[in-house]
């Protein structure tokens, strides 16, 4: 049953291909989700009452539906209104929209932890809202959110496996195809599980290092 060496020899390259896709999609989506979360935070801070309410509604909506639903809506639905994007883009967009919502909440928590005296001092030296946001608020928000941010990025990484449902050739999809071809479901999926654990480990270490880098100036 467990003929792993033979298995890895023959199918290793196929796994590496899937691994590459998973890592790239996760990285790009993570960066985009952080950017989107930042934008949502900006809207919340500068948008007055309605800005805050709008972001709240958006966050509540995306937190309470499974991420598969926006994935399917974008992948199956957008072509009906003329937008035929590649599966990777559709899936990535859904991941960004969902994780951006969570990240904006993480940022909100971090923002509330910042000493608001700083904003008064920033105003008193004539910094504009935008300038304050860029140079005073966001750097601190990011530093305070690093642990929770790392957690969220790991969740995003795991959610990339759902993209196999819309034909993206990432790790899980490769495992499914291998199972279909060879019937060796156990070997196929155990190797994939190990690869995910390894990827998660890499991301966690990266965030841990980033955390240490900003804590000890």
């Amino acid at each position: 049953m467990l003929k792993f060496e033979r298995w890895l020899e023959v199918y290793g390259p196929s796994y590496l291909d899937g691994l590459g896709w998973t890592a790239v999609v996760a990285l790009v989506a993570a960066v985009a989700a952080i950017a989107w979360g930042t934008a949502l935070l900006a809207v919340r801070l500068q948008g007055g009452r309605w800005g805050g309410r709008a972001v709240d509604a958006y966050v509540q909506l995306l937190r309470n539906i499974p991420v598969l639903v926006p994935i399917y809506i974008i992948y199956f639905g957008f072509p009906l209104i003329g937008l035929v994007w590649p599966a990777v883009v559709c899936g990535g967009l859904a991941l960004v929209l969902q994780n951006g919502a969570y990240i904006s909440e993480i940022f909100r928590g971090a923002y509330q932890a910042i000493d608001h005296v700083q904003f008064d001092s920033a105003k008193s030296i004539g910094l504009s809202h935008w300038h304050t946001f860029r140079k005073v608020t966001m750097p601190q928000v990011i530093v305070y959110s690093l642990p929770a941010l790392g957690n969220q990025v790991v969740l995003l990484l795991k959610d990339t496996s759902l993209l196999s449902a819309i034909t993206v050739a990432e790790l899980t999809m490769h495992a499914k195809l291998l199972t279909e071809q060879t019937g060796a479901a156990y070997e196929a999926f155990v190797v994939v599980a190990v690869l995910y654990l390894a990827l998660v480990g890499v991301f966690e270490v990266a965030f841990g290092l980033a955390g240490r880098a900003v804590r000890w100036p």
Partner: protein
Amino acid sequence: MTSWPMFVSTVTLLARGALVSLWLAAASTAAGTVLAVLLMAPAFSRIGLGRSAYRVFVWVVRGTPVLVQALLIFYALPALDLQTGPYIAGVIVLTLYLGALIAEVIRGGVLAIPRPQWDSARSLGLPPIALLRRVVAPLVIRYSLPAYVNVCVMAVKASSVLSIISVWELTFAAREIIERTLAVFSVLGLAAGFYFVMCFGIDRLGRRVEARLALRGFAGGRA
């Protein structure tokens, strides 16, 4: 939706699917909670091996996507020759996943009990079971309730992953309908609506329970 009868049949199917998703979530949360409580023994055991086994279990279950765990259990366990239907298999998958999450929540709750409380509880001289029942459990429940409610919401969302393995629940029902009728936005919008009502409802219910159970100034209650 091009006609009223079609709309009614769609909503009926989706509602049935939503009930299945809710049942899957509820059954696996209950079983997961039992599993999590049982896992507290190795988690806090004096034997290093017990604690490592717990940590490895949680690390594996939280480090791999639910879909991969589901595929592994659905496709790769012929050795067990379990003639279980897809629903039981789905509950097994979710139970393992939620069990690990809830175990961490409960463990966090136990660790959140301030040291002075432990000392005063022990100084009371209560036997261990009474200690657990009268001191530890009420505190842990109140400390972990917000995170536990969060896991309950995650349970409903995780049930949608089972659709990829053809388990008939809300997301699968929605996919069947859109593959038949092409009404992607309306059907998935309705499905999203059902999920929202379920998840948001659980969250609100959870808050009410938290407020009821809160011991002012002592445990529970939100900042």
